[in-house]
């Protein structure tokens, strides 16, 4: 069982080393051993140097692509190097590596093709983001439910594991800008099982989140529309087959 943890990183010079140390630590305790790979998305800070100095396995994108393009690079790498499972794990310290095996297990047991680490289905995570953002996530979750009939609570979670079938799907087609909610449509429409796993998430240690409050209303409208449009377009595609 080959497992790859993909760490997208944009200007994460302060967090990236800790994230990788956490993964090393988790590796010793887990039943499965995971490889990890930092995708440096054209950072303007010293992320690339930090990776080099500490010999972290790293792909430096030659220019900034945005989170979607960066993660997709990881999926391409995972596909080409015959990984069975790929896990997205943010480089900013929000995710907790001790929950990796909870995400891996349902996929190994073939209970799900995709698992999502969720803040909202248990009391594990004290950090649940701001009230306004929670409302936004609830709305997106509702839009996804209406469009695909699948209920996912933490649609924006970037802590997610996928099996090889979904890796193949994502390496071909993955949204660029705010990919987390949008990519779920593709997975559901292709008939793959999604399972949410309760995890603990932390507030980010250093640096700012990529979504500023000013942009969040525009974000909501854009992502809702993209979920809706995607669910229509992909339906048409599968009918044509």
């Amino acid at each position, binding site marked *: 069982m080959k497992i790859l943890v993909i760490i997208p990183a944009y200007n994460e010079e302060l967090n990236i080393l800790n994230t990788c140390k956490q993964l090393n630590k988790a590796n010793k305790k887990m039943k499965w051993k995971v490889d990890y790979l930092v995708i440096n998305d054209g950072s303007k800070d010293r992320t690339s140097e930090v990776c080099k100095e500490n010999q972290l396995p790293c792909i430096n994108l030659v220019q900034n692509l945005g989170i979607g*393009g960066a993660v997709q*690079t990881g999926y391409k790498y995972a596909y080409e190097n015959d990984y069975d499972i790929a896990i997205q794990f943010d480089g900013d310290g929000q995710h907790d590596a001790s929950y990796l095996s909870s995400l891996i297990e349902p996929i190994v047991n073939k209970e799900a093709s995709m698992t999502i680490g969720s803040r909202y289905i248990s009391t594990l995570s004290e950090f649940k983001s701001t009230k306004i953002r929670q409302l936004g996530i609830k709305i997106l979750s509702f839009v996804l439910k209406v469009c695909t009939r699948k209920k996912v609570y933490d649609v924006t979670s970037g802590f997610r594991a996928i099996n090889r079938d979904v890796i193949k799907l994502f390496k071909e087609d993955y949204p660029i800008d705010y990919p987390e909610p949008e990519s779920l449509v593709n997975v559901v429409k292709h008939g793959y099982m999604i399972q949410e796993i309760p995890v603990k998430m932390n507030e980010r240690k250093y640096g700012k989140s990529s979504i500023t409050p000013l942009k969040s209303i525009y974000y909501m409208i854009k992502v809702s529309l993209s979920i809706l449009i995607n669910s229509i377009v992909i339906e048409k595609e599968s009918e044509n087959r």
Partner: protein
Amino acid sequence: MMLQLQIFLVCLIFIVLVCIFRFIKKKHLSMKYGIFWLLLLCLLLIPVLFPQMVEVISEFLGFEVSSNMVFLFAFVFLFYVIFVLYINVSKLVDQNKILTQELSLLKAKIEREDRK
């Protein structure tokens, strides 16, 4: 249409034609798109030289004022051009993304093998 206006418009078209030729020559404009604009300008010469034609067509289509027809056609055409540009930009962004990903993957692979 007044003769002065006709002469002015013909001159204008001629100047733009010369500009397009120069852009093509300097390779600032690719031949594919250059030819499109050259043909378009030549087509524009027709209503300038035969303004009665515009009157006849706009009356036939039911426009009260023939200039309205010209504006509508110009608007629809510009909309079409911008839309085509959007499609081309989307395609370029996608191709650019793929190139960046493949190049970066390849670079990382070469560096890994150099280290061995």
